[in-house]
């Protein structure tokens, strides 16, 4: 009995920690949607790109901090250019056009590394050791502990940013109603660019954490697939939703793998979160914390 409880505790703990790491990726998605209403299907590829940048800089024997600064810097620059060249011309266009553009972008980003820096798997060694960290009866890999810390800092930082800072309030205004924001003298396009840049920063951090955990090659982009149930469950435009969604999905995946898989013969982990998501959406169609759209004729 005690053993079973310990097992459950370990499952939940690892679910929570991995869930926080999903939230980190989901955050980039939410930031963009919140400000610009764009769905970024290339979020995973963003993370992959950042991973490649940091890993290549490290391979050139530069110190870790330089690699991180470099990675974040390039990601911000990349996001600015992307917003200017691709997304701004699509402003006000059907939402599927933006989705498709990001799918095209994903293809480009997956195609580029093999031509430029080689398809071989690269690593991001972080100075945190390999010894598992014990928490009561359970253990976690050190990278996950670091991932949780980075996620918490990021999520907290952005929550503060939107609640208190002048720029954040302006961004909320833009998200709420672009026309009114414009009338109030807010430079809407500039804030769109800033939103993409913030997504770039988050992707860079995600790339470092996930890249360090999974190794860096084009497979790193797969983490992008994992965030869909997270953002939908939490609500597409809510940072809090990204956190809660991430935690729920992480725990559900973990518990499904531990308790449902043995009953049905494997592999429920991947779609259990989606089933939960659909059920939740039937009651709350805009996610747990998403803003309800009021439709008028």
């Amino acid at each position, binding site marked *: 009995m005690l053993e079973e409880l310990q097992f459950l505790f370990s499952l939940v703990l690892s679910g929570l920690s991995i869930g926080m790491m999903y939230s980190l990726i989901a955050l980039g998605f939410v930031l963009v949607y919140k400000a610009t209403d764009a769905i970024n299907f290339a979020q995973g590829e963003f993370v992959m790109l950042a991973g490649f940048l940091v890993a290549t800089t490290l391979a050139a024997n530069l110190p870790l901090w330089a690699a991180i600064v470099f990675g974040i810097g390039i990601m911000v620059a990349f996001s600015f250019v992307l917003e200017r060249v691709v997304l701004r011309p699509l402003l006000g266009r059907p939402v599927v056009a933006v989705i498709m553009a990001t799918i095209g972008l994903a293809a480009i980003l997956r195609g580029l590394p093999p031509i430029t820096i080689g398809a071989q798997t690269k690593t991001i060694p972080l100075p945190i050791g*390999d010894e598992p960290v014990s928490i009561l009866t359970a253990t976690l890999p050190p990278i996950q502990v670091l991932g949780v810390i980075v996620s918490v800092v990021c999520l907290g930082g952005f929550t503060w940013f939107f609640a208190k800072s002048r720029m954040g309030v302006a961004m909320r205004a833009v998200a709420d109603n672009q026309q009114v924001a414009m009338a109030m003298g807010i430079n809407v396009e500039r804030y769109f660019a800033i939103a993409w840049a913030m997504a770039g920063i988050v992707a860079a951090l995600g790339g470092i954490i996930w890249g360090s955990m999974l*190794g860096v*090659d084009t497979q790193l982009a797969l983490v992008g697939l994992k965030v869909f149930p997270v953002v939908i469950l939490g609500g597409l435009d809510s940072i809090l939703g990204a956190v809660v969604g991430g935690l729920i999905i992480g725990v559900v995946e973990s518990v499904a793998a531990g308790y449902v898989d043995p009953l049905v013969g494997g592999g429920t982990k991947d779609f259990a979160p989606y089933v939960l998501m659909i059920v939740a959406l039937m009651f709350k169609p805009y996610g747990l914390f998403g803003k309800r759209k009021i439709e008028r004729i």
Partner: protein
Amino acid sequence: MKLAKTVWLGSALAAATIGLAAPAFAQDKEIVIGAQCDRTGPTQIVGTVLCPAYHDYMGLVNSRGGVEGYKIKVIEIDHEYKVPPAIEAHERFKKEGAVMTSAFGTPQLIALLKKFEEDKMPVTSPGIGSSAAADGKKYPYVFPIAATYWSQAGGAMKFVKDKLGGNLKGKKIAYIFFDNPAGRELIPLLEEIGKLEGFELRTFGVPSPGIEMAAQVLDITSRFKADFVVAHLFGRAPSVAIKEFKSKSYPLSKVIGLVWAGAEADIVAAGGFGIAEGYNTLQYAGVGSDFKVIKDIIAMHKAQGRTPGKEMESTVTYNRGVYQGAVHVAAIANAIKAKGGGKITGEDLRKGFESVTTLDPSLDGLAPPLKLSAEDHEGGGWVQVWSVKGGKFVKSSEWFQGYRDVVKKHVETENKK
């Protein structure tokens, strides 16, 4: 502006048509091979190493003067692990006069199974496709030419038995697998070996994309408390598994990964050879660069003024590409000898494959002692175990076959259905 775009598009299309219009006819003293590759898409980590290796070996053969006076020409088409492009690739190969195909990707191979038979074109599928294809009577044109998943499972269990002191009675064996047909295919065979040896088998499915499996590994290590783990994982999953077992302090020397879970890239992505110390991998071709053929390839590159590619560092996958090429060359040589020259057809080549017993001697040590025949297109199902020790792969066994009779029986019953 609009017009300019139209003109631009038109010229691009026109250029494409010109490119299409220039046909390349196979010459008399030339064997054309179609290579389907996956340099992009989810399995590119394999394709970007295996395909260059294959080209390198064929280049080496041509630089030695070809096979029995014939030059080999390889046409490569990348299918991005999607099915429709593989169909197109097959038709293109046919148009260019290819007499055989080097396939990569199980869904693509399956979608083309019927076509290969109708077009009488032999195809090799080392490490992929259905295990039942080892039966040459049922699948006359498919040649796995390396240990199929069933043979791998047999080999892995034999290794496990040796490691656990020669007796598996009452032991707990965990099978962690990618939850797709290739992963599930092994379960009945493992169950049968389980009955035979009296061990308890439990299976743990990891769904695609397999970037997170803490729960399954936790289950294996702390609830099931497995004595040994057989891991049949693909893509990123093997390295995630290594990392998770490490973080649960489970000894990696009690884990054996099947052929797609044991490349250098998997170890590197898991955090390096230091972390994976003890991890066992099953191989169907030798590991490392200490083979004559590899040195020959490097010498060839240098002689042609090129630097050998980075892919040569991934020796596990690279050597598989070389091995694959060597089997093809042996089959081509057989076909030419049997026919005494002239135009080689797919049918000739099939017979050539079915009489492959010796390979290029420079592959000594790299290649298993395979013997292909009309019945056995797998060549015996030989495997070797290499383990991570002191920062590199070290050979832990010679070539061996595991539970050959069980595997054979399974192939028979599956094909009788």
